[in-house]
């Protein structure tokens, strides 16, 4: 006796809880892998999920087992040339293994690593963890492009609940009119009138004969017009809905960074997180994003991402060179009518003394009128540098567009974004 059961529709993901327990337990390892990914990956690939590797040693579950040593007999299959009494050296590394036993992976120090993938969601969760983002913002960052469903006329195919009754009946009516000819209908009407007239007269065999003939004729004519169905399949009209991606505009993001000698690798890594966050935010809001990297010391240069973060150059610091270059690029390639322009600048705040005034001039005249948002982060633990003081004046004038923040660790990156999100999500201005 057998029962056959289809379980395919049953709850899937039974292991979800166990999987989460596992991730929770190895949080530190995963966090490290995510940090590495942030460091190694291009900004544009950051939200891809990722691979996490944990040394087998850390993950094994200990049990009592025999170690190497002692006496043991082992049986192997597939003997070719051995005879009783043969002796040979122990295979390297295997110890208790015996001839060619599959222990190669344990040789020497090299240990197998346990590698697995985490999804995009999990990856972002871990990445946001020490950024202290509010939950709402996290959610917004993780959401894929949103679509809006809009009406777009009528179609002849669709699901029943989209059926448009008025349109369908109108089409049916039109079809019926089109398929029966006018003459037949007029003929029927004329014959009916004749019939009614006859019925009013006094009965006689002749009249009865005539009436019967008329009736037969009318039935015959009606038959041909009745063959047309009242409502046919192809009369049906459905409301047409299309999914429109929202919003669909374009944005360009400028990453501007000081690479003078005073910027250490850890400062650069923090700057990278800041840029990533901005990128993710823009990614959610705009369909197409371009990223422009501008690095500068005494003069500025447009570079690719690799060079931006990792090539080493030293020199003095003239911030205005980078601002001027950005302004040039905007003029050349990104007309503000077509592009939403965002600029994120990271620096340790150190600038050549005579240059700060030039910076605020370029900002107020050439850049801020064209950009959506300019975010400046000063990554330093010391007192504010001269560029900061200069920028404070700019902030007075362009409160809406210009944000500045001093960052000493990653947790402070978010406040810079708060204004930006408030503007986007609630439409209110920052009050304090």
């Amino acid at each position, binding site marked *: 006796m057998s029962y056959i059961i289809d379980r395919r529709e049953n709850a899937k993901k039974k*292991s979800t809880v*166990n999987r989460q327990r596992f991730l929770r337990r190895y949080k530190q390892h995963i966090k490290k892998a995510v940090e590495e990914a942030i460091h190694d990956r291009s900004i544009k690939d950051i939200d891809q999920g990722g691979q996490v590797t944990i040394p087998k040693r850390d*993950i094994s579950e200990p049990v*009592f087992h025999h*170690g190497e040593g002692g006496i043991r007999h082992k049986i192997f299959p597939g*003997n070719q040339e051995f005879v009783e009494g043969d002796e040979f050296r122990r295979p390297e590394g295997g110890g*208790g293994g015996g001839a060619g036993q599959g222990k190669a992976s344990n040789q020497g120090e090299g240990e197998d690593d346990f590698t697995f993938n985490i999804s995009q969601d999990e990856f972002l969760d871990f990445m946001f963890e020490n950024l202290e983002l509010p939950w709402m913002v996290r959610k917004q960052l993780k959401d894929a492009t949103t679509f809006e469903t809009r009406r777009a006329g009528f179609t002849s195919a669709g699901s029943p609940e989209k059926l448009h009754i008025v349109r369908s009946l109108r089409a049916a009516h039109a079809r019926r009119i089109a398929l029966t000819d006018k003459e037949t209908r007029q003929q029927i009407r004329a014959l009916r009138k004749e019939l009614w007239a006859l019925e009013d007269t006094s009965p006689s065999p002749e009249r009865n004969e005539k009436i019967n003939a008329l009736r037969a004729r009318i039935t015959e004519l009606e038959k041909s017009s009745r063959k047309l169905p009242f409502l046919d399949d192809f009369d049906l009209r459905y409301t047409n809905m299309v999914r429109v991606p929202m919003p669909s505009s374009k944005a360009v993001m400028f990453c501007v960074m000081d690479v003078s000698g005073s910027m250490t690798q850890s400062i650069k890594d923090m700057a990278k997180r800041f840029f990533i966050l901005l990128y993710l935010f823009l990614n959610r809001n705009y369909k197409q994003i371009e990223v422009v990297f501008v690095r500068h010391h005494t003069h500025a240069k447009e570079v690719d991402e690799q060079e931006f973060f990792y090539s080493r150059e030293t020199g003095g610091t003239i911030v205005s060179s980078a601002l001027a270059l950005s302004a040039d690029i905007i003029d050349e390639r990104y007309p503000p009518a077509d592009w939403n322009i965002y600029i994120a600048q990271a620096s340790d705040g150190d600038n050549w003394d005579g240059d700060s005034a030039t910076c605020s001039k370029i900002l107020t005249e050439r850049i801020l009128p064209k950009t959506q948002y300019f975010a400046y982060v000063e990554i330093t633990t010391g007192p504010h540098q001269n560029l900061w003081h200069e920028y404070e004046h700019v902030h007075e004038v362009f409160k809406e567009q210009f944000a500045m923040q001093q960052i000493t660790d990653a947790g402070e990156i978010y406040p810079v974004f708060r204004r930006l999100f408030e503007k986007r999500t609630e439409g209110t201005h920052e009050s304090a």
Partner: protein
Amino acid sequence: MNQPKARQPISTGSDWTFELIEAYDREIGRIAADFGLDTYPNQIEVITSEQMMDAYSSVGMPLNYNHWSFGKQFVETEQNYKRGRMGLAYEIVINSDPCIAYLMEENTITMQALVIAHACYGHNSFFKGNYLFRTWTDASAIIDYLLFAKNYIRRCEEKHGVDEVEKLLDSCHALMNYGVNRYKRPRPLTAAEERERQRSREEYIQRHLNDLWNTTVPRKSDDEAGKLPRFPAEPEENILYFIEKNAPLLEPWQREIIRIVRKVAQYFYPQKQTQVMNEGWACFWHYTLLHQLFDEGLVTDGFMMEFLHSHSSVIYQPPFDSPYFSGINPYTLGYNMMQDIRRICEKPTDEDREWFPDIAGSDWRETLMDAMRNYKDESFILQFLSPHLMRELKLFSILDDSSRPTLRVDAIHNERGYRAIRESLSAQYNLGNREPNIQVYNVNVRGDRALTLRHYMHNGQPLGESTDEVLKHLHRLWGFDIRLESVTPDGEVMQSYACPPQAHELTVESIA
């Protein structure tokens, strides 16, 4: 008699439908009954590959309590599967009544028929017939018990926190292999009884424990302690059981969880001891049953080709020097032994008559059934491995003595080696040899309550490198010092471990 229906195959394509599965199951079931296979009713469940991975990673059970290690298993399986490094098992079958077998929806109808023959009639009849399963597990109660365990542990997590429960389960899992009664037979309980008794047990144990520890008095001198009778009086092999009943500091819910882990370990204990037989039995029967289908004209040549292809890859044994070699394939060994017994019964040679006088020429069905019912891997090999099969598999034995610089081939498949090889191979499947024999030896009842374990060494083999880690888990459960001594058969202590690392060694050194 069911006569062939004029060579009308059940199906010709490769796609399966529920009707076809039913038809195959009916025919295979009929043939199995003709051969005399006694089975539990079957519950055949069709699942997706994702569900198969889920089942895989909760040790093949349809439900289980939550623990990170199952998540690890899942992640690993998923990773390997996605990369195409391994195919999923075609089937999982659960020793329950009714016997639950999973079929994967991705399989062809041939594979489904193969799985039905293999799992629903092969494994199923083994579960029902073999003495180990009959005495150690209760097929009708296991699903209910797991449900009870899952709910109980979930409630504990709500009450005491996930971390606390997780730590406890980690420690229990580390000692899971030592949570079984190897010799004593447990009394099977139903889930309902289990629940009923759980509450009264909590109270009783707590009271009982208090009595035990209340009687302790301050230690007077070490000499006196040495003369006292040991506790437990006899060494206890079931470490988890001992802890559940005697650890002084555990809460009632902690004892209950230890008990759950113990019960689950006990349930899987027979499976560990009958892998060769169980798989061999199932392979033998899927081979025999499907051939019978073919002989009756119920399946096509194409069906047989596909089936034989899977069959031969399952029972393939790579030679010892192949890169794919990872020990003796239990499917190969088991299947070949089963076929070999049939051969000995049907066409015995003079050699067989000499080696197996009692079964040579007997009825093969009765002989096989008898072997299935009354043996486990160790005794099965010792009893039935024939010289013929040893030659066929070209078995040889290697002696690895760590005190000698070289390995030695001490027996090969020839007249002088047969018995030695058979004995060594049988010993290889003796759980007592595979897992270190560690037992609870003594508790210092009148002193620091330290727990002493003894490792009775086998062939001078020491313990592996994770021993200290396991002792930490044991220490968490027991709550007081743990000592472990490896002793030789002469009673000489070769090595001792302690958790926490022994303080008095330091003091001795500082005095000296």
